[in-house]
């Protein structure tokens, strides 16, 4: 079965500083990978997804970018953080074919921008 790692677990950054959050996946190859943000402990907002190395789809135009330098590595970045970037960031992978297709989530990174 697959395992999703995210780090760091928590992060406090000043406004205007850069950001790099990392997600790695074990136990599966060529996964679909996703970045979500959850604000205020409620709804999830899909930020980016990737179906392969170097392939990134952006769902919401904003202050963030994503990259997939390796098959099982997905990175979320920002050059200058805003207060509104605070939230709980979740990485997810999609596993299985048409009849077993399920999305699994990592443990998350809580980002506080001050």
């Amino acid at each position, binding site marked *: 079965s697959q395992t999703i790692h995210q780090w760091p677990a928590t992060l406090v950054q000043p406004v205007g500083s850069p950001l790099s959050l990392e997600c790695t996946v074990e136990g599966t190859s060529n996964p679909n990978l996703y970045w979500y943000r959850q604000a205020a*402990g409620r709804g999830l907002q*899909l930020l980016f997804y990737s179906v392969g190395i170097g392939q990134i789809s952006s769902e919401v135009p904003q202050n963030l970018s994503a990259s997939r330098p390796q098959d099982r590595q997905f990175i979320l970045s920002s050059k200058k953080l805003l207060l509104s970037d605070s939230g709980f960031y*979740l990485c997810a992978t999609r596993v299985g074919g*048409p009849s*077993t297709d399920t999305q699994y989530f990592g*443990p998350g990174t809580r980002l506080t921008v001050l």
Partner: protein
Amino acid sequence: AQSVAQPEDQVNVAEGNPLTVKCTYSVSGNPYLFWYVQYPNRGLQFLLKYITGDNLVKGSYGFEAEFNKSQTSFHLKKPSALVSDSALYFCAVRARGANNLFFGTGTRLTVIP
């Protein structure tokens, strides 16, 4: 367009009583439907899914959900609630052939001892 509605922000139920968390969806064609649970400061955990077949789906921790195509609903149920079931529950839908899940806004379940 795909969408999911969880009409209740908060559900309170006494321990030992049955619980229901409601979800309705809108999607073109036949949907994939999912329920996830989130404990504080944790990632989402998969509970169950409906892909095809039997409309009653059984999942983890004694939860089940019934797919009702005519009412476009996928309500989560459990016959006897536990205090440890207290958490945030998310319903999600994906259209067949699509890459992404659409999530509801979540329902906070509190089981009262």
